[in-house]
């Protein structure tokens, strides 16, 4: 019984890991078409992927999720593939660095 539970647990884990990897891949593939560099498109959530997607959402003015982490990958992937995909892609063509002369950081 215990063995069966372990097996089911492992199965669920591997499925969710695969799903997670798929979502991360989805984000990375999207980023690869933009000016926001996520490093390799490998399905692994790393610092570059996190920084890139957070920066993209900041520039696009999307405030939810607040600070994107790996656990948010599914939600983010949904947004990226949703109705606003085209507009998002366009806004991410280039990066916008604000001018900070005379402004507080």
């Amino acid at each position, binding site marked *: 019984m215990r063995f069966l539970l372990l097996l089911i647990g492992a199965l669920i884990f591997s499925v969710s890991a695969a799903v997670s990897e798929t979502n991360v891949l989805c984000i990375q593939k999207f980023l690869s078409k933009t*000016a926001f560099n996520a490093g390799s498109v490998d399905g692994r959530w790393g610092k570059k992927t996190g*920084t890139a997607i*957070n*920066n993209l959402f*900041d*520039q*696009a*003015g*999307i405030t939810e999720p607040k600070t994107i982490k790996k656990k948010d990958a599914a939600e983010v992937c949904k947004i990226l593939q949703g109705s*606003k995909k*085209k*507009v*998002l892609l*366009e*806004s991410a*063509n*280039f*990066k*916008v*660095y*604000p*001018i*900070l*002369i*005379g*402004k507080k*950081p």
Partner: protein
Amino acid sequence: MLTRRHFLTGSGAGLFLSGYPVHGFTKEPVDGRIVVILLEGGMDGLLAVPPIGDKNLFKKRRGLVSSKALKLNPLFAIHPNFRKFSAMLENEEASIVHATSFPYTGRSHFEGQNVMQTGLKDPFSSRTGWLGRAMAIAKITGKAMSLDSPLIMRGATDYDNFYPTHLKDVSMKFNWSETLNLIQGTHDSDASNTFDVLGQKQPTSMRKWKMAHRDPLSLAEKAGHSLREVDGPRVAVITVPHFDDHTEIMEASEHPEKFTTIDNIFASLRNKLQEQWANTIVLTMTEFGRTVKENGAAGTDHGYGSAGLLAGGLIKRSSVIADWPGLATSELYERRDLYATIDYRSVCAACIEAAFGLDHDLITEQVFQDKNIPRAYTHIFGGLG
């Protein structure tokens, strides 16, 4: 210390939430103005806007970074001679596009200048310019502040020149319009139209003490006046030559002096356009940038990516727009030039969209004849959220 996330966030600006219409919809015509400043010779974008946050900048061109460059943000600074332009940046009415170029990598002035003006990828493939084609579509008139009709404006159905003569001792004892009308009839097509337009103008004054100045700054002042006229021109083109500084580029009389000229042109236009400044976009362009490394004569040679400076009331939020490629040798174009990661035609298209109200798809198809030009409107003119 600012995190990368913080300094990318503007003042909460939401490009995504800008509420701008998506592609394919026809816009309402806009009563905007465009002034193009052609920088002939290849402006060194890295000298104008040094990427001080790139660790390779000082490794590659230590001698070519002004010690008094004004810091704009953690990544970029601007040459100190752009004093007035910097004030516009502070005032949220100017922006910079960096690591940009027209899609031309051949490093020839003459091919590059042709591409810059026609807006097409192949040099010498058109007798009209991108600005002229846009003007024709939008049915707008313009004024070239030069003796010749610059290629960039050809194709417009209605435009004129301004470059006052200093020819001395000329008798005007003949009927100007009648004589020119008769001359017109002996020519065909463009020449005929040109004589026709000339015939309708009052001849410029021949008195010595009224001889107008013809330097780029004086011409910019005149352009500013003209663009305020009711039913007058809405486009002007000014040329600033001599950017081809293969030697001693940091000398005061070389690039720095030209930077001051550009700076003064921006300020003069702002001053003279007055209320029309709010509807205006002024942009610089150059045929290519220059090599990242200094050459053997304290100058730089022909390169690829450069920077474009923009200012005008149509800009709502100042920024540097870039997809920064980096200055490590492996990141350079052919291991020598700043890569151009932004097609400058995107910038030109955005300016046409903002000033004339033409749709981006229409612009790429009919003005630049290339549907694959990314839209940069929201980045340059996106505004506050």
